[in-house]
Protein backbone atom coordinates (compact mmCIF):
# COMPACT_ATOMS: atom_id res chain seq x y z
CA UNK A 1 0.00 0.00 0.00
CA UNK A 2 1.77 3.16 -1.11
CA UNK A 3 1.91 5.89 1.49
CA UNK A 4 1.71 9.52 0.22
CA UNK A 5 4.50 10.60 2.60
CA UNK A 6 6.83 8.16 0.87
CA UNK A 7 6.51 10.03 -2.42
CA UNK A 8 8.67 12.78 -0.95
CA UNK A 9 11.58 10.38 -0.35
CA UNK A 10 14.11 9.72 -3.10
CA UNK A 11 13.52 6.51 -5.06
CA UNK A 12 15.81 3.97 -6.68
CA UNK A 13 19.24 3.07 -5.36
CA UNK A 14 19.73 6.51 -3.79
CA UNK A 15 16.52 5.93 -1.85
CA UNK A 16 17.74 2.50 -0.87
CA UNK A 17 21.01 3.74 0.60
CA UNK A 18 19.15 6.49 2.47
CA UNK A 19 16.54 4.02 3.78
CA UNK A 20 19.18 1.61 5.04
CA UNK A 21 21.26 4.41 6.57
CA UNK A 22 18.26 6.14 8.12
CA UNK A 23 16.87 6.18 11.64
CA UNK A 24 14.43 3.66 13.09
CA UNK A 25 12.91 2.04 10.01
CA UNK A 26 14.70 0.44 7.08
CA UNK A 27 11.63 -0.70 5.17
CA UNK A 28 9.73 2.58 4.88
CA UNK A 29 5.99 2.27 4.46
CA UNK A 30 6.11 -1.50 5.01
CA UNK A 31 4.07 -2.87 7.87
CA UNK A 32 6.29 -4.87 10.26
CA UNK A 33 4.14 -7.97 9.80
CA UNK A 34 4.59 -7.71 6.05
CA UNK A 35 8.37 -7.36 6.42
CA UNK A 36 8.42 -10.41 8.70
CA UNK A 37 6.35 -12.41 6.21
CA UNK A 38 8.86 -11.49 3.48
CA UNK A 39 11.77 -12.61 5.65
CA UNK A 40 9.96 -15.88 6.39
CA UNK A 41 9.29 -16.41 2.68
CA UNK A 42 12.96 -15.76 1.94
CA UNK A 43 13.98 -18.49 4.41
CA UNK A 44 11.32 -20.78 2.95
CA UNK A 45 12.78 -20.10 -0.50
CA UNK A 46 16.07 -21.50 0.75
CA UNK A 47 14.39 -24.63 2.13
CA UNK A 48 12.61 -25.32 -1.18
CA UNK A 49 15.80 -24.52 -3.09
CA UNK A 50 17.70 -27.08 -1.04
CA UNK A 51 15.11 -29.73 -1.94
CA UNK A 52 15.15 -28.85 -5.62
CA UNK A 53 18.95 -28.60 -5.80
CA UNK A 54 19.29 -31.98 -4.06
CA UNK A 55 16.81 -33.40 -6.56
CA UNK A 56 18.80 -31.92 -9.44
CA UNK A 57 22.06 -33.32 -8.12
CA UNK A 58 20.66 -36.82 -7.62
CA UNK A 59 18.86 -36.88 -10.95
CA UNK A 60 22.07 -35.80 -12.68
CA UNK A 61 24.13 -38.52 -11.01
CA UNK A 62 21.97 -41.69 -11.14
CA UNK A 63 23.11 -44.33 -13.59
CA UNK A 64 19.61 -45.80 -14.09
CA UNK A 65 17.18 -43.87 -16.32
CA UNK A 66 15.01 -41.35 -14.46
CA UNK A 67 11.23 -42.12 -14.75
CA UNK A 68 9.73 -40.07 -17.58
CA UNK A 69 7.30 -37.74 -15.76
CA UNK A 70 5.15 -37.15 -18.83
CA UNK A 71 4.11 -40.83 -18.74
CA UNK A 72 4.24 -41.38 -14.96
CA UNK A 73 1.83 -38.50 -14.37
CA UNK A 74 -0.29 -39.10 -17.45
CA UNK A 75 -3.96 -40.04 -17.19
CA UNK A 76 -6.22 -42.04 -19.47
CA UNK A 77 -9.34 -40.18 -20.59
CA UNK A 78 -11.82 -42.50 -22.35
CA UNK A 79 -8.95 -44.81 -23.26
CA UNK A 80 -6.77 -42.00 -24.66
CA UNK A 81 -3.57 -41.33 -22.68
CA UNK A 82 -3.12 -37.61 -21.99
CA UNK A 83 0.29 -36.55 -20.61
CA UNK A 84 0.40 -34.58 -17.36
CA UNK A 85 -3.36 -33.93 -17.48
CA UNK A 86 -3.97 -33.77 -13.73
CA UNK A 87 -0.83 -31.68 -13.16
CA UNK A 88 -1.92 -29.18 -15.80
CA UNK A 89 -5.36 -28.85 -14.19
CA UNK A 90 -3.73 -28.45 -10.76
CA UNK A 91 -1.49 -25.71 -12.16
CA UNK A 92 -4.48 -23.83 -13.59
CA UNK A 93 -6.44 -24.21 -10.34
CA UNK A 94 -3.53 -22.81 -8.30
CA UNK A 95 -3.05 -19.87 -10.68
CA UNK A 96 -6.77 -19.16 -10.52
CA UNK A 97 -6.63 -19.11 -6.74
CA UNK A 98 -3.61 -16.81 -6.93
CA UNK A 99 -5.61 -14.44 -9.11
CA UNK A 100 -8.58 -14.42 -6.73
CA UNK A 101 -6.15 -13.75 -3.86
CA UNK A 102 -4.69 -10.77 -5.74
CA UNK A 103 -8.24 -9.40 -6.10
CA UNK A 104 -8.93 -10.08 -2.41
CA UNK A 105 -5.85 -8.02 -1.52
CA UNK A 106 -7.02 -5.24 -3.85
CA UNK A 107 -10.46 -5.15 -2.22
CA UNK A 108 -8.76 -5.32 1.17
CA UNK A 109 -6.86 -2.11 0.33
CA UNK A 110 -10.19 -0.51 -0.52
CA UNK A 111 -11.74 -1.83 2.72
CA UNK A 112 -14.49 -3.48 0.68
CA UNK A 113 -15.60 -6.08 3.24
CA UNK A 114 -17.96 -8.17 1.12
CA UNK A 115 -15.84 -8.45 -2.02
CA UNK A 116 -12.67 -9.06 -0.01
CA UNK A 117 -14.35 -11.83 1.98
CA UNK A 118 -15.82 -13.39 -1.16
CA UNK A 119 -12.45 -13.54 -2.90
CA UNK A 120 -10.64 -14.87 0.18
CA UNK A 121 -13.29 -17.61 0.34
CA UNK A 122 -12.90 -18.38 -3.39
CA UNK A 123 -9.13 -18.60 -2.89
CA UNK A 124 -9.63 -21.05 -0.02
CA UNK A 125 -11.90 -23.21 -2.17
CA UNK A 126 -9.34 -23.16 -4.99
CA UNK A 127 -6.62 -24.24 -2.58
CA UNK A 128 -8.82 -27.01 -1.21
CA UNK A 129 -9.44 -28.26 -4.76
CA UNK A 130 -5.71 -28.31 -5.36
CA UNK A 131 -5.02 -30.33 -2.19
CA UNK A 132 -7.84 -32.73 -3.12
CA UNK A 133 -6.35 -33.35 -6.56
CA UNK A 134 -2.93 -33.83 -5.03
CA UNK A 135 -4.37 -36.46 -2.66
CA UNK A 136 -5.83 -38.20 -5.73
CA UNK A 137 -2.45 -38.04 -7.50
CA UNK A 138 -0.63 -39.47 -4.48
CA UNK A 139 -3.09 -42.29 -3.95
CA UNK A 140 -2.92 -43.23 -7.64
CA UNK A 141 0.88 -43.36 -7.52
CA UNK A 142 0.99 -45.25 -4.21
CA UNK A 143 -1.85 -47.77 -4.61
CA UNK A 144 -2.11 -48.15 -8.39
CA UNK A 145 1.48 -47.73 -9.59
CA UNK A 146 3.27 -48.90 -6.45
CA UNK A 147 5.62 -45.92 -6.13
CA UNK A 148 7.51 -45.95 -2.81
CA UNK A 149 10.23 -43.68 -1.41
CA UNK A 150 12.67 -46.58 -1.81
CA UNK A 151 11.66 -47.79 -5.25
CA UNK A 152 9.22 -47.69 -8.14
CA UNK A 153 8.48 -49.68 -11.28
CA UNK A 154 9.49 -46.87 -13.69
CA UNK A 155 13.23 -46.40 -13.19
CA UNK A 156 15.67 -44.81 -10.74
CA UNK A 157 14.79 -45.68 -7.14
CA UNK A 158 15.36 -42.15 -5.82
CA UNK A 159 12.36 -40.84 -7.79
CA UNK A 160 9.78 -41.67 -5.10
CA UNK A 161 11.72 -40.12 -2.22
CA UNK A 162 12.07 -36.81 -4.05
CA UNK A 163 8.53 -36.84 -5.34
CA UNK A 164 6.97 -37.38 -1.91
CA UNK A 165 9.33 -34.98 -0.16
CA UNK A 166 9.01 -32.06 -2.57
CA UNK A 167 5.32 -32.25 -3.46
CA UNK A 168 4.51 -33.23 0.13
CA UNK A 169 6.29 -30.19 1.55
CA UNK A 170 4.54 -27.98 -0.97
CA UNK A 171 1.18 -29.63 -0.23
CA UNK A 172 1.72 -28.98 3.48
CA UNK A 173 2.20 -25.30 2.68
CA UNK A 174 -0.99 -25.27 0.62
CA UNK A 175 -2.94 -27.03 3.40
CA UNK A 176 -1.76 -24.56 6.04
CA UNK A 177 -2.63 -21.73 3.66
CA UNK A 178 -6.14 -23.13 3.13
CA UNK A 179 -6.73 -23.30 6.90
CA UNK A 180 -5.63 -19.69 7.31
CA UNK A 181 -7.69 -18.57 4.30
CA UNK A 182 -10.87 -20.05 5.83
CA UNK A 183 -10.10 -18.43 9.20
CA UNK A 184 -9.48 -15.07 7.54
CA UNK A 185 -12.55 -15.33 5.30
CA UNK A 186 -14.58 -15.64 8.51
CA UNK A 187 -12.74 -12.71 10.09
CA UNK A 188 -13.35 -10.52 7.05
CA UNK A 189 -17.07 -11.38 6.87
CA UNK A 190 -17.47 -10.75 10.60
CA UNK A 191 -16.03 -7.27 10.04
CA UNK A 192 -13.00 -7.70 12.30
CA UNK A 193 -10.90 -5.56 9.98
CA UNK A 194 -13.47 -2.75 9.93
CA UNK A 195 -14.05 -2.63 13.69
CA UNK A 196 -10.42 -3.33 14.59
CA UNK A 197 -11.52 -6.23 16.81
CA UNK A 198 -8.58 -7.72 18.71
CA UNK A 199 -7.17 -11.04 17.54
CA UNK A 200 -7.71 -14.14 19.68
CA UNK A 201 -4.04 -15.12 19.92
CA UNK A 202 -2.25 -11.85 19.23
CA UNK A 203 -4.65 -9.48 21.07
CA UNK A 204 -3.64 -6.89 18.47
CA UNK A 205 -6.14 -4.83 16.53
CA UNK A 206 -7.13 -6.45 13.25
CA UNK A 207 -6.27 -4.54 10.10
CA UNK A 208 -6.77 -5.18 6.39
CA UNK A 209 -2.98 -5.36 6.01
CA UNK A 210 -3.37 -8.93 7.32
CA UNK A 211 -5.03 -9.83 4.02
CA UNK A 212 -2.04 -8.49 2.14
CA UNK A 213 0.31 -10.55 4.34
CA UNK A 214 -1.79 -13.67 3.83
CA UNK A 215 -1.75 -12.88 0.10
CA UNK A 216 2.05 -12.79 0.09
CA UNK A 217 2.12 -16.29 1.60
CA UNK A 218 -0.43 -17.61 -0.88
CA UNK A 219 1.33 -16.14 -3.92
CA UNK A 220 4.57 -17.68 -2.63
CA UNK A 221 2.90 -21.10 -2.59
CA UNK A 222 1.90 -20.52 -6.21
CA UNK A 223 5.44 -19.32 -6.99
CA UNK A 224 6.97 -22.51 -5.59
CA UNK A 225 4.55 -24.56 -7.68
CA UNK A 226 5.80 -22.76 -10.81
CA UNK A 227 9.29 -24.09 -10.05
CA UNK A 228 8.12 -27.59 -9.09
CA UNK A 229 5.98 -27.78 -12.24
CA UNK A 230 8.98 -26.81 -14.37
CA UNK A 231 11.68 -28.90 -12.71
CA UNK A 232 9.82 -31.96 -11.53
CA UNK A 233 7.01 -32.47 -14.02
CA UNK A 234 8.18 -30.89 -17.27
CA UNK A 235 11.96 -31.39 -17.15
Amino acid at each position, binding site marked *: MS*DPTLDKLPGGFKGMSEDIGSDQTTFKGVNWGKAMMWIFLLSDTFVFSCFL*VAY*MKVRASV*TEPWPYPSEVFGLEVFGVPVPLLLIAIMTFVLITSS*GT*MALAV*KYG*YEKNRKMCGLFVLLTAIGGLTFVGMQAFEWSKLIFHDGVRPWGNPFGAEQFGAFFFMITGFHGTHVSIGVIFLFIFARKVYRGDFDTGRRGYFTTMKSDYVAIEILGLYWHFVDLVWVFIFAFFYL*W
Partner: protein
Amino acid sequence: MVSKAMTDTKKKEETSTHKIGIYLWIWGLLFVLSFFSYMVDWYNFQGLLRWSLILFFMFLKAGLIMAFFMHLFWERYALVNVLLWPMTAIACFVGLMVAEGKYTVFSRLFYFFVGG
Protein backbone atom coordinates in the same frame (compact mmCIF):
# COMPACT_ATOMS: atom_id res chain seq x y z
CA MET B 1 -11.46 24.11 1.17
CA VAL B 2 -13.99 21.30 1.05
CA SER B 3 -13.39 20.60 -2.61
CA LYS B 4 -9.63 20.61 -2.04
CA ALA B 5 -9.99 18.08 0.79
CA MET B 6 -12.17 15.95 -1.45
CA THR B 7 -9.68 15.96 -4.30
CA ASP B 8 -6.93 15.18 -1.79
CA THR B 9 -8.73 12.12 -0.49
CA LYS B 10 -9.58 11.06 -4.01
CA LYS B 11 -5.96 11.40 -5.00
CA LYS B 12 -4.92 9.39 -1.96
CA GLU B 13 -7.31 6.59 -2.89
CA GLU B 14 -5.91 6.49 -6.39
CA THR B 15 -2.35 6.18 -5.17
CA SER B 16 -3.09 3.55 -2.53
CA THR B 17 -4.80 1.06 -4.83
CA HIS B 18 -4.15 -0.34 -8.27
CA LYS B 19 -6.74 -0.67 -10.99
CA ILE B 20 -8.36 -4.06 -11.32
CA GLY B 21 -7.21 -4.25 -14.96
CA ILE B 22 -3.57 -4.85 -14.08
CA TYR B 23 -4.45 -7.89 -11.97
CA LEU B 24 -6.68 -9.34 -14.68
CA TRP B 25 -3.96 -8.80 -17.28
CA ILE B 26 -1.32 -10.55 -15.18
CA TRP B 27 -3.79 -13.31 -14.37
CA GLY B 28 -4.49 -13.86 -18.08
CA LEU B 29 -0.78 -13.79 -18.92
CA LEU B 30 -0.08 -16.43 -16.27
CA PHE B 31 -2.77 -18.64 -17.81
CA VAL B 32 -1.32 -18.23 -21.30
CA LEU B 33 2.25 -18.87 -20.12
CA SER B 34 1.17 -21.97 -18.19
CA PHE B 35 -0.64 -23.17 -21.30
CA PHE B 36 2.53 -22.63 -23.36
CA SER B 37 4.69 -24.52 -20.87
CA TYR B 38 2.18 -27.38 -20.95
CA MET B 39 2.38 -27.32 -24.75
CA VAL B 40 6.15 -27.87 -24.47
CA ASP B 41 5.31 -31.27 -23.00
CA TRP B 42 2.32 -31.87 -25.28
CA TYR B 43 4.36 -31.46 -28.47
CA ASN B 44 7.15 -33.43 -26.82
CA PHE B 45 9.99 -30.99 -27.53
CA GLN B 46 13.31 -32.51 -26.50
CA GLY B 47 16.84 -31.42 -25.73
CA LEU B 48 18.02 -27.84 -25.48
CA LEU B 49 14.80 -26.43 -26.94
CA ARG B 50 12.70 -28.11 -24.22
CA TRP B 51 14.92 -26.93 -21.36
CA SER B 52 15.27 -23.37 -22.58
CA LEU B 53 11.52 -23.03 -23.17
CA ILE B 54 10.70 -24.49 -19.74
CA LEU B 55 13.13 -22.11 -18.02
CA PHE B 56 11.94 -19.14 -20.06
CA PHE B 57 8.26 -19.63 -19.18
CA MET B 58 9.13 -20.47 -15.57
CA PHE B 59 11.15 -17.32 -14.95
CA LEU B 60 8.57 -15.18 -16.76
CA LYS B 61 5.76 -16.57 -14.59
CA ALA B 62 7.80 -16.25 -11.40
CA GLY B 63 8.71 -12.67 -12.28
CA LEU B 64 5.11 -11.69 -13.00
CA ILE B 65 3.86 -13.22 -9.74
CA MET B 66 6.56 -11.53 -7.66
CA ALA B 67 6.42 -8.16 -9.40
CA PHE B 68 2.65 -7.66 -9.56
CA PHE B 69 0.80 -10.16 -7.39
CA MET B 70 3.31 -9.76 -4.55
CA HIS B 71 3.65 -6.02 -5.32
CA LEU B 72 7.46 -6.02 -5.44
CA PHE B 73 7.25 -3.72 -8.48
CA TRP B 74 5.73 -1.03 -6.25
CA GLU B 75 7.98 -1.55 -3.21
CA ARG B 76 10.99 0.57 -2.37
CA TYR B 77 14.41 -0.72 -3.40
CA ALA B 78 15.45 -1.32 0.22
CA LEU B 79 13.00 -4.26 0.44
CA VAL B 80 13.40 -5.46 -3.15
CA ASN B 81 17.18 -5.73 -2.92
CA VAL B 82 17.15 -7.40 0.49
CA LEU B 83 14.88 -10.07 -1.01
CA LEU B 84 16.48 -10.61 -4.40
CA TRP B 85 20.24 -10.55 -3.71
CA PRO B 86 20.25 -13.67 -1.51
CA MET B 87 18.95 -15.56 -4.56
CA THR B 88 22.45 -15.27 -6.09
CA ALA B 89 23.66 -17.58 -3.30
CA ILE B 90 21.19 -20.19 -4.59
CA ALA B 91 22.52 -19.73 -8.12
CA CYS B 92 26.07 -20.38 -6.81
CA PHE B 93 24.80 -23.47 -4.96
CA VAL B 94 23.20 -24.77 -8.15
CA GLY B 95 26.48 -24.27 -10.00
CA LEU B 96 28.43 -26.15 -7.32
CA MET B 97 25.98 -29.04 -7.33
CA VAL B 98 26.06 -29.34 -11.13
CA ALA B 99 29.83 -29.87 -10.86
CA GLU B 100 29.37 -32.28 -7.94
CA GLY B 101 26.71 -34.25 -9.86
CA LYS B 102 29.03 -34.66 -12.82
CA TYR B 103 31.79 -35.92 -10.55
CA THR B 104 29.41 -38.37 -8.82
CA VAL B 105 28.08 -39.84 -12.04
CA PHE B 106 31.61 -40.14 -13.39
CA SER B 107 32.82 -42.04 -10.30
CA ARG B 108 29.74 -44.27 -10.34
CA LEU B 109 30.13 -45.21 -13.97
CA PHE B 110 33.85 -45.70 -13.49
CA TYR B 111 33.54 -48.06 -10.51
CA PHE B 112 30.44 -49.85 -11.76
CA PHE B 113 31.83 -50.65 -15.18
CA VAL B 114 35.61 -50.38 -14.93
CA GLY B 115 36.05 -51.39 -11.30
CA GLY B 116 38.13 -49.99 -8.44
